[in-house]
């Protein structure tokens, strides 16, 4: 089957396509998170060093990974938008930012919940924690810059540049535990070495991560549909057949 990709780069053509994908991603997310929670909270044994407090890993690591991954994807869409001057790309940037900010917030809060019993402090000005906090400010910056500029095209470009420049912080967060002497533990899972955790724990963590990823896809596609409606409403009346129909149905 040949798919005409360029057709879907038009926001109004992408709108119904996104609508068809959302239930699938949402269902997979719900099922995967349910199984991940079952394994993480009920099946996985305790950690011999940290006791049951380690179970925070099943939300903390997936949230932290999504916070960085979504930033890279957001910056990627910003780059495409700036390069090709494509409206839909900027809309994707706009749609990803709130979910990325939410996962950054969750990584910080669940990290505090883990830090208190294991380190004795909710917060320390450690390289990993500080760079992740900066990531939260970056997401806020990308969103605030957009809302502070009235002209839509200028808002797109300014927040796009902001998102793109900020991507330098991602490798800093990722490698902070190697580059600096930090309190935060090193990577439990890396691409170069065998995972330093039991298979059942790793399975639970990877399922939760996959679930959060699918959740993000569903939520971001729903938000980009809202953004399309908000920004392209004036064009809707001229294309009543396909899009107005889709809008009415769903």
């Amino acid at each position, binding site marked *: 089957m040949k798919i005409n990709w360029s057709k879907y780069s038009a926001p109004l053509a992408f709108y119904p396509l996104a609508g068809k994908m959302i239930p699938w991603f949402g269902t997979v997310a719900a099922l995967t998170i349910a199984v991940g929670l079952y394994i993480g909270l*009920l099946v996985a044994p305790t950690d011999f060093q940290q006791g049951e407090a380690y179970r925070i890993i099943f939300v903390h690591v997936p949230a932290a990974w999504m916070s960085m991954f979504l930033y890279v994807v957001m910056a990627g869409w910003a780059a495409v938008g700036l390069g090709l001057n494509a409206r839909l790309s900027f809309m994707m940037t706009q749609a990803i930012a709130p979910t990325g900010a939410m996962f950054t917030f969750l990584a910080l809060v669940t990290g505090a*919940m883990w830090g208190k019993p294991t380190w004795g402090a909710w917060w320390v000005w450690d390289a990993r924690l500080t760079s992740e906090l900066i990531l939260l400010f970056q997401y806020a910056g990308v969103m605030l810059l957009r809302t502070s500029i009235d002209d839509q095209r200028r808002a797109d470009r300014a927040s796009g540049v902001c998102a793109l420049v900020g991507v330098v912080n991602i490798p800093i967060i990722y490698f902070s535990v190697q580059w600096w002497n930090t309190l935060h533990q090193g990577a439990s899972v890396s691409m170069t070495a065998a995972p330093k955790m039991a298979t059942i724990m790793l399975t639970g963590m990877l399922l939760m991560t996959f679930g959060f990823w699918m959740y993000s896809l569903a939520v971001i596609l729903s938000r980009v549909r809202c953004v399309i409606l908000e920004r392209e*409403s004036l064009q809707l009346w001229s294309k009543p057949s396909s899009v107005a129909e889709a809008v009415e149905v769903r």
Partner: protein
Amino acid sequence: MVYWKSVSDFLEMGGYGLYVWTSFIITALCMVWELLALWRRRVAALAESRGITRSLG
């Protein structure tokens, strides 16, 4: 298959219950809140675009 001996054992989380459950509950609340906010945003956007479509069409 299940690791815990009893329900209270499960809820106590070896003395770390407060930290573990707060983490999971905050995560769940944020995700549910995001879904609700999106639903409300969608309802508002649809009403807005219907209004524009009607006034122009």
